[in-house]
């Protein structure tokens, strides 16, 4: 990260954590914690493409831990965030355009790669994150079929709607 793109990321960090903690966590409380909309991982996804993977993993951990501190689920979001920082590198590598990424595409958004590409990447990215979030929240394979998988599917579906809305509204470019 250099000075030209560090501030947009800081704003996204603060903004997404605030939305997550103030609005979305209340929604999930109202739903008795059954469905969780997790928007803050967009911060991880919208980090610069060329960022070093260890840094992405650490920033994912950091944003997750910040959310955890507000909500009181110490470690659950941090674990999912760190995993997302790593899975993001693999997903982006798999979806690399022919000839690789260039400095003309600083972050993975529809503006540079098109909606079809973005929805594919975001779908896998959020599926991994939300599955791991519920896995850590229940912390036992006993609930895998009964609770973790159905809640992952529901949460993933709702989250993808909000992700599309966010991206449509803000058109992030850096």
């Amino acid at each position: 990260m250099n000075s030209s793109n560090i501030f947009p990321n800081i704003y996204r960090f603060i903004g997404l954590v605030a939305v997550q903690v103030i609005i979305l966590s209340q929604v999930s409380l109202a739903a008795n914690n059954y469905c969780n909309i997790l928007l803050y991982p967009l911060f991880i996804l919208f980090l610069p493409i060329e960022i070093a993977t260890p840094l992405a993993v650490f920033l994912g951990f950091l944003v997750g831990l910040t959310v955890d501190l507000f909500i009181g689920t110490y470690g659950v979001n941090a674990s999912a965030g760190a995993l997302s920082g790593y899975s993001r590198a693999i997903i982006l590598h798999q979806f690399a355009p022919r000839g690789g990424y260039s400095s003309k595409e600083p972050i993975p958004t529809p503006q540079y790669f098109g909606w079809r590409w973005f929805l594919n990447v975001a779908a896998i990215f959020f599926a991994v994150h939300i599955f791991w979030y519920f896995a850590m929240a229940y912390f036992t394979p006993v609930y895998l079929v009964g609770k973790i998988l159905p809640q992952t599917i529901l949460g993933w579906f709702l989250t993808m709607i909000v992700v599309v809305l966010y991206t449509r509204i803000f058109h992030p470019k850096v």
Partner: protein
Amino acid sequence: MHSIIQLFVRHGGLLTLVVLQVVCLYLIASYNAAQRQVATASWVKYSGDVMDWKTRLYDYLDLRDENNRLRSENARLQTLLINARMGERPAVDTFSLRREPSDSASQKIVRPEYTFIPARVVSNSIGGRNNWMIINRGSRDGVQPNSGVITADGLAGIVRYVSEDFSMVMSVLHRQTRISAAVKHQAYFGSLLWDGENPQKMVLSDIPYHLKVKPRDTIEISHYSLMFPEGHMAGIVDTAYRVDGSNFLHIDVRLSQNPAGINNVYIVNNKFSAQLDQLQQAVKDE
């Protein structure tokens, strides 16, 4: 140092992920009530398995020591067992003033007759006409020549030569071997010897032909034997028939201890062998 940096450059993301996941697991299991319960229950469940596995591993690693310990223990128990059978007799004076129950230990004089030294066979042969084996106990361990050597299942041989740490044992498969043996529950006794044929069989001679001996009868050490403990299993009858023109039976005995498979043995020390020798010498001199 260089290779560590190389490792981090190549797998830094994965390393960071693993380290942070460990931190997260610790946080989750420490500060969340529900997950802590799961973690505690799992710990209780699986730590038992792990401990069990660890114990089994250690048991396996200690097997050699354990074997040695069990061999000594066996020798000690055999000593107790045979002494109880052989050396226990009522006190001579039955007119005791103290009137203790007649079976109390204080009224019996225990006369330990045998001690046992555990040993292992380090060399063995069964192919020749006169077979020998070497065991890993010698004079330093208290082995004396002309001591019997037995296994838990049967007979092994007789100590002939003793060095400091090893002993040369004349196998039961030796033309000079003569062991006093009897058919179980029969009064007559004979000599167990090897005819040099089958290494799993010996011949019991000198049993009068009028005795009824059937296949599968037990052959055990007779109470006249000085080297071997009375009643120790020697083998079972394979065939028994009267030799024409002889007053004795020819009894083929299948050995209960296969001489080819001998490993753990006990050297039998008769505590009275010196006295008995002395007495026999006294008669010889006359």
